């Protein structure tokens, strides 16, 4: 059974100038233990997708239609109180900046034990032992002493380890990680990605990894969804999406990343920029920037359908609707 199913999710922001559609009918699912990458440029809607799943969509943003199902249970219309029992217990969250996701006034130990006891019926002592074990598992040296330290006494990489420990504290089956390594240096980034991968594998937790860094996706994920202007334009196994992309946006994106192997004088560039939410073009949202645009792209919006090795939303792909 699928762990998480997102079906035709639409997120809207009502504004004075009409309703803005930030996420426009996206569907995907995550299997237990799977790592799904969500990649896209700023404004593509990847963080909003994550926020909708963990129920932290900021008003006036709201889920206008569609459904989110976790282990057969629909959670998209849950109240804040109901979501509090899901968050932490069933879905853990890791955010970009570890300094803002920890409370600077409490010791790290207190924050982790609090999370454990909020969700699991364990004694103070047991909670403390668990917290120490979690810190050890995330690779923090001298974990027992570090319990009494405050977040500012940790370095950036160590803080992100604490955040991961906290996200895993109540043994959730799904972790939503929103740009977990963006604020870190490359050498620390490699440590954190490696940790996230092994620790989730050991515990059988699935991960939804949101990032703009294709390199991180490549080495971490099983499958990847590429987002553009609030929609998924391509989704498939990570190897196929990177090496045999079918959507012109995905191939353009791949070619614009400077890599360590080729010696190109110029990088391939996608001209223009992602459209603003109040000016999403008719038809395919990518059509003004697409090098292979033709008449149909400007009229009708393509849906995801099976392509060479992935699923892509593009009229270039032959065949009927899915």
């Amino acid at each position: 059974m699928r762990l998480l199913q997102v079906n035709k999710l639409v997120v809207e922001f009502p504004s004075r100038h009409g309703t803005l559609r930030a996420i426009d009918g996206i569907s995907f699912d995550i299997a237990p233990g799977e790592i799904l990458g969500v990649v896209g440029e700023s404004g593509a809607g990847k963080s909003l997708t994550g926020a909708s799943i963990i129920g932290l969509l900021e008003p006036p943003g709201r889920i206008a239609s569609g459904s989110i199902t976790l282990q057969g249970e629909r959670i998209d219309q849950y109240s804040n109180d109901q979501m509090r029992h899901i968050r932490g217990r069933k879905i853990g969250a890791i955010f970009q900046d570890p300094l803002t996701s920890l409370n600077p006034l409490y010791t790290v130990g207190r924050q982790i034990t609090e999370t454990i006891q909020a969700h699991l019926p364990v004694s103070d002592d047991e909670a403390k032992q668990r917290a120490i074990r979690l810190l050890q598992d995330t690779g923090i040296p001298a974990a027992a002493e570090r319990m009494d330290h405050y977040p500012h006494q940790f370095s950036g990489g160590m803080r992100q380890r604490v955040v991961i420990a906290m996200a895993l504290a109540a043994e959730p089956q799904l972790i939503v990680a929103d740009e977990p390594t963006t604020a870190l240096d490359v050498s620390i980034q490699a440590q954190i990605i490696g940790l996230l991968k092994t620790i989730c594998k050991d515990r059988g937790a699935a991960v939804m990894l949101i990032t703009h860094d294709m390199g991180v996706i490549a080495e971490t994920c099983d499958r990847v969804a590429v987002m553009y202007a609030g929609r998924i334009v391509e989704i498939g196994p990570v190897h196929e999406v990177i090496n045999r992309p079918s959507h012109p946006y995905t191939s353009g994106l791949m070619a614009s990343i400077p890599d360590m192997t080729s010696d190109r004088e110029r990088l391939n560039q996608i001209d223009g920029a992602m459209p603003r939410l109040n000016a999403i073009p008719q038809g395919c949202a990518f059509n003004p920037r697409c090098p292979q645009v033709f008449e149909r792209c400007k009229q009708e919006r393509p849906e995801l359908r099976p392509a060479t090795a992935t699923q892509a939303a593009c009229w270039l792909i032959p065949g009927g609707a899915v």
Partner: protein
Amino acid sequence: MSSQALVVAHDLAKTFDVSAPWLNRVLEGKPRQLLHAVDGVSFEIERGTTLALVGESGCGKSTVARLLVGLYEPTRGGLRFGGQDAYAAFKSPEAKAMRKRIQMIFQDPYASLNPRWTVDAIIGEPLLEHGMIQDAAELQARVAELLQSVGLSALDMPKYPHQFSGGQRQRISIARALATAPEFLVCDEPTSALDVSVQAQVLNIMKDLQRERGLTYLFISHNLAVVRHVSDKVGVMYLGRLVELADKHTLFANPQHPYTRMLLDAIPKMHDTGRARTPVQGEVPNPLNPPTGCSFHPRCPLVTERCQTERPLLRELKGIKIACHAVS
């Protein structure tokens, strides 16, 4: 040292005083504390080429950038620009002439443009400030030309920065830097705030401009793939010092310093899905209290006793410069 190099930095150092306030020092007996942000960095940049500086946060690369444009005064060392002593020039009545030749592009295009100024005011300011333009019509024409050279249009002149996307703003920054027709551009992480497809646009423009105008760049970045794309020579910095300085192809094909190797290993490889990276051990130490000897020794796989006590100097080795005891 060759005399043709446009920029010659010699033993540049910058120390910041980060001591507690005087009263606390007296009452609590706290000592003075100095932060050696840049600790003796020497390099040359040939005219028309790009030197890239890479390193992790806190290694002093941005401080080097600020030293080169004269935003900071060095604690020690000197800078020769086109054969002239740059710091002497910055203090003399010729300061403006020197500043005209060295310009800077900043990291964050949202913070480096005044939101209340229109684009023509932003780009026109250096022209007026340096007295390069006399009348309004000439100014308009020159600004329009600058905008076109970075792929924007003359119609953008009356607009404000908020009407542009991140990539377009960075182009406005570049146009402003080019206004005084400088010879040397210091670019401090010019694309790290941009999305990859936009980053490609900006990097391409920078390369085109370098070809057309023979510009010299100091390019600062933490992204090794970007550095590999734009640079001719690369300097790797660690805790305020250069640990390796080499030609781009040599450095990437055959990195010598253990830190450089570690950094290269840490880059995610796109077409190598599922490959486990060799994670770098440990973290950058506190620069207030750097390790003795070679400051990289606590993380180094090749560490010997000598590394813990004696600080390696940057020396020539088979055409590159390296500061390491273990490599020979």
